[in-house]
């Protein structure tokens, strides 16, 4: 427990580390297996699964699977689509949700209490329960673009971005954080004649670093890992994101080496990012537990 235990030496300590390490093996080895397999030709890959070689970079090691994966499907395009959709959604979400939260916490207007409760009530609606009617709505929404007014958002970036810009959890995280900021700061600025947009831009947002990081990480994970929604609304290759592309790639062929290469390619950067910002990631996820 939290107290320093005098027995923490010798055998006991070794025992503890042994338990911790054995559990760590369970979590790490499937991922190690994925990366190692991506470097091996299929025949060796299957043969290696019967020994510990499955987890080691031994034998005929090369990047051939990666090259083959890029040849078989436009993996680069899928990655780019996901990066665009994720990047744009994260930025717009931070802006729109922080603005709304700013208004709920610092401005006094009629109806804000009701509207905030409506927004928080959406937290108990899982996306899966609105996906089907949302599909119908998305297929009928108009859009004004280069070709004039068009009906239907299917097969586009916007259908993957716009519905996910505003969400209850992000607004909630900003509201919680803004409530703890010293109100005197805002009052003083008002007294000195600052406008609301100035207060938002010059005072509140510069102080919001931690909550921006939390909200950005959560949104990033949700958006990059999107599957159900793009599966339904994107049939064209040109807008397909990585996770749907993966399923499609898998159906093209069952060459496990290439599949493991695709998996590694889209996972290792996220894992590296995670290990680099480990504390921030874990803190963000823990903060979602506050909801409910």
């Amino acid at each position, binding site marked *: 427990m*939290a*107290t320093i235990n005098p027995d*923490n030496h010798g055998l006991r300590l070794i025992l*503890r580390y042994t338990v*911790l390490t054995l559990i*760590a093996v*369970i*979590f*790490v080895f*499937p991922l190690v*297996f*994925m990366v190692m397999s991506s470097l091996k030709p299929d025949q060796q890959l299957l043969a290696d699964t*019967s*020994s510990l070689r499955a987890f080691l970079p031994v034998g005929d090691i090369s990047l051939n699977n990666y090259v083959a994966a890029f040849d078989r499907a436009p993996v680069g395009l899928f990655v780019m689509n996901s990066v665009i959709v994720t990047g744009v959604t994260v930025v717009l979400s931070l802006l*729109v949700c922080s*603005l*709304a939260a700013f*208004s*709920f916490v*610092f*401005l*006094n207007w*009629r109806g804000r209490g009701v509207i905030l409760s409506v927004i928080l009530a*959406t937290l*108990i609606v899982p*996306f*899966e*329960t*609105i996906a*089907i*009617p*949302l*599909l*119908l*709505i998305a*297929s009928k929404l108009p859009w004004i673009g280069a070709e004039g007014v068009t009906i239907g958002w299917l097969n586009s970036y916007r259908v993957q971005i716009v*519905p*996910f*810009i*505003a*969400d*209850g959890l992000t*607004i909630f995280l900003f509201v919680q954080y803004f409530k703890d900021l010293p109100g005197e700061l805002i*009052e003083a600025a008002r007294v000195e004649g600052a406008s*609301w947009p100035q207060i938002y831009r010059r005072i509140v947002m510069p102080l919001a670093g931690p909550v921006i990081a939390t909200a950005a990480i959560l949104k990033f994970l949700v958006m990059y890992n999107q*599957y*159900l929604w793009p*599966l339904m609304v994107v049939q064209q290759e040109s807008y397909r994101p990585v996770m749907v592309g993966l*399923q499609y790639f*898998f159906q093209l062929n069952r060459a496990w080496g290439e599949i*493991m290469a695709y*998996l590694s390619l*889209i*996972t290792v950067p996220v894992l590296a990012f995670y290990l680099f910002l*480990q504390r921030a990631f*874990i803190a963000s*996820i*823990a903060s979602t*537990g506050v909801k*409910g």
Partner: protein
Amino acid sequence: MATKLTQSNGAGWAFALPGFGLMVVFIILPFFFAFALSFTNQRLISPNPTAYVGAANYRQLLGVGTITLDPLRDDAGAVQRAADGSPAYPRLREFTRANPDYPQLDGMREWFSFGRGESRTFVLARDVVFMKAIVNTVIFVLVVAPLQGALALGLALLINQRLRGINLFRAIYFMPVVVSIVVVSLLWRFIYSADGGLLNNMLTGLSFGLFTPVDWLGTPSTALGSIIAMSIWQAVGFHMVIWLSGLQTISPTLYEAASIEGATKWQTFRYVTWPGLRNTAVLVLIVITMQAFALFAQIDVMTKGGPLDSTQTIVFQAVDRGYGKQDISGGSAISVILFCIVLTISLIQRYLTRERT
């Protein structure tokens, strides 16, 4: 706050409107649409106008009936038997296909049956696959919620020790959480695969060849269990972190008092740690339950509901209907049913947490 004295309706709405407006169109509207559409025959693309059909979608999804049949007898009055020696019963079709004496069973199919003496009761459902989906989802939730919750608590207790390098272990246990469930599902599909799969080969190696390889995802009795194990592997770190933040709110002085009193480890856990974690426990269970009810990606990537519908789930059915078969109204009805289940669980959570505060 002085700002409360001054109304700023214009600015207030202007700041809140982009966010609220988007939520109205993309969350609140579809939510109410789900209810409305579930009483119609709306399709994604259809030449016919949409019509109100009442509760027909719900009757179609949830309709169940039973019929108890006596075995067939020959002229001498002896029970007729099938080739395997089991008693033979009249064909159910005679009752479920336009039989004027059994209008309530019309169009139903056998779900399961159980015997009582010589007679046998057949439970019929209008949509047997959806019934199986509900049962599988409930099994998934009932296994995953307590098991994943308990394992996550165990990990949190391990990680809460003061040891050099403990942060490294915490980071490792949490790692699968940041990996997409689609990636995890495909990776484990390979691990579980019948020929050359890592799991079969590892088990064969560890048992010195005694273990007979299993087609984990291709066998009805192991498919759901395999998906459960993988889902726990992926998500347990998430709940470990929530437990950990609960553990860190327990005052160290309580532990000091317990150790002065000479409490054993178990007593310390039972009387200090566990009471301090009650609200966290409710929260963890609810979060796991909500996530478990939404089970979809694993199924779509690994089994598509098979083999023999042994891994059908509610959300998989909703998507299969609403998107696959373009039956928006049927998919919406399933969504509403799912929402009602989730809402009930949230209300139970409210009730449980209110009681203690």
